[in-house]
């Protein structure tokens, strides 16, 4: 039984394991970093620490939209790698039993499949669960 934070991109609902989340922040000033992939929006000052932020929309092939009051940065942490993802809004925290998580086939486009480790079912809702490790290790190579 793991807890997940549910966030929204348009009408799609995503879930991210709460144990990888360091903090959730409102949008703040982002400094662009040149020579980075287009989904890297830049870096923010997170309490004196410089943290890169990624546009979740860009990474997952959505169209980018204007940020608004609901926009949040979820700061993820794995090992000693830290990065934030920008999402449309944060919904709630849910608990999903491991038995209610199904693996993914080819239902998603090939370029974002690897960032997803499964689909979580809560009653009638379906949550796309992120593979945080894969997202964070992406820029490493």
């Amino acid at each position, binding site marked *: 039984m793991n807890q997940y934070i549910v966030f929204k991109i348009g009408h799609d609902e995503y879930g991210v394991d709460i144990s990888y989340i360091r903090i959730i922040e409102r949008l703040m*000033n982002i*400094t662009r970093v*040149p020579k980075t992939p287009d989904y890297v929006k830049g870096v923010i000052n997170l309490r004196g620490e410089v943290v890169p932020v990624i546009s979740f929309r860009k990474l997952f092939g959505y169209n980018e939209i204007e940020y608004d009051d609901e926009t949040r940065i979820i700061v993820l942490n794995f090992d000693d*790698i830290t990065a934030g993802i920008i999402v449309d809004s944060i919904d709630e925290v849910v608990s999903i039993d491991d038995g209610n998580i199904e693996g993914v086939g080819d239902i998603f486009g090939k370029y974002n499949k690897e960032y997803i480790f499964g689909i979580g079912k809560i009653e009638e809702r379906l949550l796309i669960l992120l593979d945080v490790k894969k997202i964070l290790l992406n820029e*490493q190579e």
Partner: protein
Amino acid sequence: MDVNQYLNLFIDESREYLQKLNSNLLYLENHPQDMETINEIFRVAHTLKGMSSTMGFTNIANLTHEMENLLSEVRNGNIELNEEMVNVLFKCLDVLERYVNNIEEMGIEGDIKVSGLIDEIRGLLNLSTTEKETEDKTISVNEFKDYELNVIKDALVKGFKPLKIQIYLKEDCLLKAARAFMVFKALEKEGEVFKTVPSIEDIEDEKFKDNFTIFILTKRETGYLQQLLLGISEVIKVIVEEVHLNEGVSNIDVSIDVKTEKIVQDEDEINQNKKEIEKNKTSKTVRVDIERLDKLMNLVSELIIIKTRLEGLDTKANQDMVMAIEYLERITTNLHDAVMKVRMVPIERVYNRFPRMVRDLSKELGKEINLYMSGEETEVDRTVIDEIGDPLVHLIRNAIDHGIETPEERQKMGKPSKGKIYLRAYHDGNNVVIEVEDDGKGIDKEKVKQKALEKKLLTKEEILIKSDKEIIDLLFTPGFSTADKVTDISGRGVGLDVVKKKIENLGGMVEVKTQLGKGTKFIIRLPLTLAIIQALLIKVGQEKYAIPLSSIKEIMKIRVENIKKVKGREMVLYRGNILPIIRLNRILDLDDEISNSSRDLTVVIVKKGDFLAGLTVDSLIGQQEIVIKSLGKYLSNNRIIAGATILGDGNVALILDPNILLSEGEMNYESVHSV
């Protein structure tokens, strides 16, 4: 008992003790009569023995045991210390160091052949003990040996009382040695134990029945000591008596001694005080993981940023608020300084290894050299300490090998036969300066010129126009060595350029001053800390960037029409040389700028070694001290950005790495040249 968890502690502590051993041995070499030093060495060997046998490192324990045997004979006055012994002790130290290294690397001490060394020690013991054995027996009739009497006399002068303490343990006491150890441990703090019956070794080996006697010099009251010792479990009886030197003769001795030895003693006392202070220093420290310090540092910089924000708020209306913010400012500044200080380590840590190195090398090369060190207490950032060791080793080796002449040569030149090497460290503004100076033969400029020609680094014409300083600086070119012969120590030509590179990597610089026949001085300047640098803040488009001041040569304006295009590369003439222009906005993936339309371009000229290039910027913001932060692992492969910093308004500004910018420019530049 699982001792693995103590392994790191053991390694750390052993290193500390080996260092102590090293410095004491060096001191002993020059002051062979100094009993205090011999005692100290004995204590260190003893502690090491105890530590290592607890950890199950029997080889170390065995070797230190042998060292102890030798030292205790010296301590008891049975044999006299000579050079041979010091050398053997040094050898032991080397072996111990290797053991500890092995332990650090593999977790086991490994097999190092020490039987020869142990034989050597035993040889020293036998040879000299036989001489004195007969005498020994007669002396043992008296309660105290000569040297012990001396110790007592000294102590009486200083106001210490000699006490005789008899300690009785429970008859069925199981760990007699352990109890005895606790007794010693307790007494250690109260005074100096100078004799035991039976001997310390025998007590440790439990070669006593249920009681032993300790003679101690102390200022404590007898009753206090008695209570103290009775507090140790399984000690059942303690008899403390004052020792009176029986004959009046010795009393007279004392008074005479007072007169003659007073001065010496004062000096001793000072030394002792010094040692005591040092001891206190080490015992009152805490080891802290550097990561925790970084975290603390982060929090402080954040506090400073929020403070700047508070200052910017409109608070004129509220006088109290203004005062409170001023107060906050003072505190944050102090806090910042304090945290920075925590990261600072005295340079002594690096210095420690040099006396030994100079000693060994000068012996090997048949040179006589005194090393003078000053400024050991000068503090530098932890990161600098880790990096500066190798360059200094290089410079000192150079000084010994190439700088200082042999005693004969020196005498011929009318110099004292003993050469001098000075190692100095001091603070100078925001820099730490380290100097390595020798009074040797200096650098021969003509020789350097000749070599430069041979190696085709310069043409004849070029040499004529170069200044003396520029000629000397050739020494820092890779592959350059003026040594006539290559020795083991230096002269392979891999020296000075590596030194220079390392120091530049640390954000510092190195310069040479030399006078033929008089000596050479290398001056290294390093920033106090690597976490904070001076930088120039500039604007490109709407974005702010920082360029480290250390790599900026100058800033100037150039007219757009002066830019020439050579094979698609932009160049301007700058002081008779071609200066490639790097358009920062293009490198930083920004749209072509507004400034394109203006006639003047602001160009920041940056350097990388001898190579220069001009970076175009839109405007200059100013010079500022910045705290360097990493971009984090996620973006670790970004090349042109060296890091980031947080500005007063809380925003992040990126720090450009001119080295990378230039090496990309350099490539283009050369391709232009070859056409």
